[in-house]
């Protein structure tokens, strides 16, 4: 029977140099799904999300000595995942020309994605979200899909609650305008 470890227990184990690797695998098991879905909603592609998730944990492993424990382990990991995701999107944006971005279309690429099971409505929603700037998209995803509280988001993203509320408000307005034009 497997034992369920909580975050605090994993942190304690991470502090023990002799058991660090064991603690790391527990940490991966504990957080992999949560982080995966946060990344996936941003990058859309499963393969990209898988790469970023692996890189996130590798960064976490190499940076374990820098984890002081003053922030929650989940918050620390989320920040690493967030940075990896934004860096990935920035690199991708720079390699694509503006024309390419307009031509490909998120909805069209999702239609041919074997790991996207949504209908036309779901594709349109993703297309609407994809038009948002990366950080605004992230705030929208965390608030709308993950139902994360602004205070928790503020700690995770290092942004004030006020700025996050404003960002979410703008995101919602843009997406609703997108659907207004469709309808």
């Amino acid at each position, binding site marked *: 029977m497997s034992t369920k470890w909580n975050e605090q227990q994993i942190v304690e184990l991470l502090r023990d140099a002799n058991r660090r690797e064991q603690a790391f695998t527990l940490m991966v098991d504990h957080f992999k799904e949560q982080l995966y879905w946060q990344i996936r909603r941003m990058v859309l592609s499963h393969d990209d999300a898988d790469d970023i998730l692996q890189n996130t944990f590798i960064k976490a492993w190499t940076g374990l000595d820098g984890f002081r424990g003053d922030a929650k382990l989940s918050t620390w990991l989320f920040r690493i995942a967030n940075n990896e995701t934004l860096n990935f999107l920035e690199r991708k944006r720079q390699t694509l020309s503006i024309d390419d971005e307009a031509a490909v279309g998120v909805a069209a690429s999702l239609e041919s994605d074997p790991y996207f099971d949504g209908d036309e409505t779901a594709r349109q929603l993703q297309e609407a979200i994809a038009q948002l700037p990366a950080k605004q998209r992230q705030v929208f995803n965390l608030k709308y899909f993950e139902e994360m509280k602004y205070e928790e988001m503020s700690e995770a993203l290092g942004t004030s609650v006020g700025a996050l509320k404003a960002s979410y408000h703008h995101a919602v307005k843009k*997406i609703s305008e997108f659907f207004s034009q469709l309808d």
Partner: protein
Amino acid sequence: MIEEDLIRNHDTGVNPFKTPDGYFDSFTTRLMERMGHEGLIEQPAVQQKTEAIVVKMNPFRRAIRYAAAAVVAGVCIAAGTYLYTHQSNAEQALIGEGFEIAMSDEDLDDALDYEMDYEILNNSQIAYYLTEAY
């Protein structure tokens, strides 16, 4: 928020993103193996699964192999049958001469002793037994 309601009208509420079968189950193992290959950790003590290499046999070769197996099986059966019947005949022959094949050695000694006790000896035989160290 009215705009949020508009969004929810276009949201099925079901997560449309899928993952490959077993993705999460195997993720940690794959990650640790990658970290081992990259020298970030000691190679995990995972027994390398060496899959048996399956070589498709030529149909002709397969037929030859089956035939050979059948011949060996036939030889074994024939040898076994011969030995069984040969032994039975030998037993029958011995039984015909009055020998009790089924007797144990102990019983056989007793029977011989009994025979010896009741054997009618002539004078020269008696003399022999009395003088020889028996």
